[in-house]
């Protein structure tokens, strides 16, 4: 799980081009949107593409997506339970 979270953080940094940021700068439980990392709605679409390309996970329901993309921890939990590859 810890390895998955580090990999996921690296993928988020690359996908969203968070320049100057390292995996250790992102708190597992900090909100990705709003007050935490400060991501926005376009970033949420990018994260959905990230999940599909890297883990074969397709999020169809926007409400469900909001909960899945809440933090690195919620994303990692969902990936571990639902990943296709």
């Amino acid at each position, binding site marked *: 799980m810890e390895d998955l979270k580090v990999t996921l953080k690296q993928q988020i940094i690359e996908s*969203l081009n968070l320049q100057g940021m390292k995996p250790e700068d992102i708190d597992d439980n900090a909100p990705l949107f709003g007050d935490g990392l400060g991501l926005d709605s376009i970033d949420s679409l990018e994260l959905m593409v990230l999940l599909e390309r890297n883990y074969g996970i397709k999020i169809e329901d926007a409400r469900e997506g909001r909960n899945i993309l809440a933090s690195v921890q919620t994303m990692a939990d969902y990936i571990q339970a639902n990943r296709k590859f």
Partner: protein
Amino acid sequence: MLLLKPIYITHTSAITPQHQAEGRLLDPLVADTDGKLQVIEPDYTAVIPAMQLRRMSRVLRMGVYTGMDCLRRSGCECPDGIITGTGKGSMTDTEKFVKELAQYQEGSLNPTPFILSTYNAVNGAIALQTRATGYNQTYVHRGSSFETALYDAQLKLNTVAATQHYLVGCFDEITPEYFLVKSKVGYWKKERDPGQSLWQQADSPGTLAGEGAAFFMLSNSHDGAITGIHALQTTYKTPVAAIGQVATELIVRNGWQPGDIDMLVLGFNGDSRDEPYYEALQQSIPGTPPVLAFKHLCGEYETSGGFALWLLCQLLNGKSLPGAVWYRAPDKERFHPRKILYYNHYRGQNHNLILLSA
């Protein structure tokens, strides 16, 4: 035909392949590298918020930075309108988006390159930053994109009695793919003598690839004007034999005479297919007025006219230009042109003429 009132340039900003300080072109001039003149990029973080910057590709950064810098120089926080011209928009984002379409077989695609590959992305970003909710337009008219944006600004500023200020600009970039594809169809000069100026090598086809961004604050008020734009005309596929007549008619329609023109700004690019148009235009103007060239400094691209206008504004603002800028230098060291004709064409298809006064 209705004669429009002139509009005035009050402030400028540009990102160019040449070194500059406070808007002044610096000697020595930068030569091309392998047939390309690529811009010297500034520190974008000084002007563009980090959260916006991370999404922007190179040409978007160039455009937004230059537009915001032009606003900063003018002291105008929110323009009445934003109009731009671009020949290609963000090629980097377009190429990325198209490649991913193929790579992922039209499956889920990253939204950012798609959103930012749209031509009006620069206008949108500037409008968001300045909270400008007024007129906002982008022209993609290949080699007349910038001049069409200027013409639209003149039309818009002629419709209001109150003083208004429009931010007008242009931006285009070279990407490796674009350079490669266009080299296959003979756009770029194959063999060149770096010791000779570009226009002295017009006995063979091809030119230098270029890129840049330039923005201008335009107003219908004469206050603080660097130059006035009196008339603009764009034409399509005008033959060499007709270009002089087109220019003469524009000059006369504006109430001037060809002999009044005391300076030319011409887009000589060293391509044997393109140079005859400039030679023909010169023949239509009596005497031998000084000629400012610019494509040896910025290369050939659809909106190179933005660089030309920026360069002209530096001259009219009293800044000295390096001697190598001139195709035909003025006799006097302190040269103050009063009536200027700009002519630039893109591959013999898009022809652009502007009458300016100082």
